[in-house]
């Protein structure tokens, strides 16, 4: 009888951890009980990726960080951009302006004149191996006001 409690606790915790097997692994992810779908899905080599870029008045590009999008996490930053684009032009402009405000407060980006939200069509392997930049489609553009 002394082992009944520990056996029940063990069964519940292991059972709960394995419970996501009953869900579609691609759609049923959650926390803390996960289907662990990371890296499992196929992705095309050529893919559209939306992100924010910063430019000087002469068009030279400066690097932004996830912090300019309001997070420390790269993946969270892309969720923020994708969410803004999904809300339409007004949502994309609103995000652009939020980023511009953060850029304006960043002394390291003092020469940045504008922020653009873009969707890049990149051949991901060629981008990394050969430096092929891909093409950009502008979604929103806003000035950095200081």
């Amino acid at each position, binding site marked *: 009888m002394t082992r009944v*409690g520990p056996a029940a606790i*063990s069964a519940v915790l292991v059972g709960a951890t394995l419970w996501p097997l009953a869900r579609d692994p691609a759609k049923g992810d959650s926390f803390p009980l*996960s*289907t*662990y779908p990371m890296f499992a899905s196929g*992705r095309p080599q050529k893919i559209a990726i939306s992100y924010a870029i910063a430019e000087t008045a002469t068009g030279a590009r400066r690097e932004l960080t*996830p912090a300019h999008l309001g997070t420390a996490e790269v*993946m969270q930053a892309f969720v923020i951009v994708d969410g803004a684009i999904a809300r339409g032009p007004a949502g994309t402009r609103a995000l652009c302006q939020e980023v511009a405000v953060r850029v304006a407060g960043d002394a390291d980006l003092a020469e940045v004149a504008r922020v653009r939200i873009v969707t890049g069509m990149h051949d991901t392997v060629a981008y*990394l191996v050969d430096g092929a930049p891909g093409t950009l489609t502008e979604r929103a553009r806003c000035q950095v006001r200081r």
Partner: protein
Amino acid sequence: MTRRLVGWWFAEAPAERLAALRILVGTYGLVWVVARMVEIDRVARLPERQFAPVGPIALLGGPLPRAAVLAIAAATALLMAAFVAGIAYRAVAPVAAAALVWTLSYRNSWGIAFHTENLLVLHVAALACAPAADAWAIRPIWRGARAGYGWPIKLMVALTAATYLLAGIAKLRIAGLAWLDGDLLRNQIAYDNVRKAVLGDRIAPLATTFLAHGPLLVAFSVATLAIELGAPLALAGGRLARLWALAAWGFHLGVVLLMNIWFPYPLFGIAFVPVLAPETWVARLREWRRARRR
């Protein structure tokens, strides 16, 4: 058969081993929560439209005020400190585990569920239900656990194995054996590194080398699936379990080198400590210090 299974699950282990796991896992949880405080603050400022609750956070109708989020996170850190020290453990540990689940679930409730904290939460939950403060605790209560100290350790190994097994099964269910041909992994690595590159983050040091030499990725794909589906071997204990843990650690190192994605809980080795005998490290340290004094 049942008797053998019960005997194996409840095989004895020293109270100090379970206590060492409490201290190591709990300290990691404490440091993690403190280190993530800035990010927790950042997500607490995100607009409500990005709120996508997971786990227990689904009970909420909307995001909490920022002050409440930070207060709960700070309370979680304090509770984890008490968890590590073993203070009033039977009362404090379950509350600390619940607070950790809440705080980390909240952090994961903004459109993306990270997978770096799941096993930590599961291990803390297992320890919270166990007599893990019968040794090496402030005012330890020597009750002499009637079911022994081995079963929680076995449970932690089982939870570790289950999470890796699930990851392997997810790959087979989503992509099938095509996951092994290397192309899928190549595109994943390329996609992930390009996302880092366009946002000014560092790409992984071996990404371009492996992307330029595709066949290397077939070997990595096969090894990944073998390690994930082979995770139940850790339950065998002994050398086999330690070999699996070493392979799994190597896999995470590979993920860093190819994708610059860090899973700190396994990379620091904490996820695999249940297959080791951490209490012996203290004894060895004491012996070494004694030898130095002579």
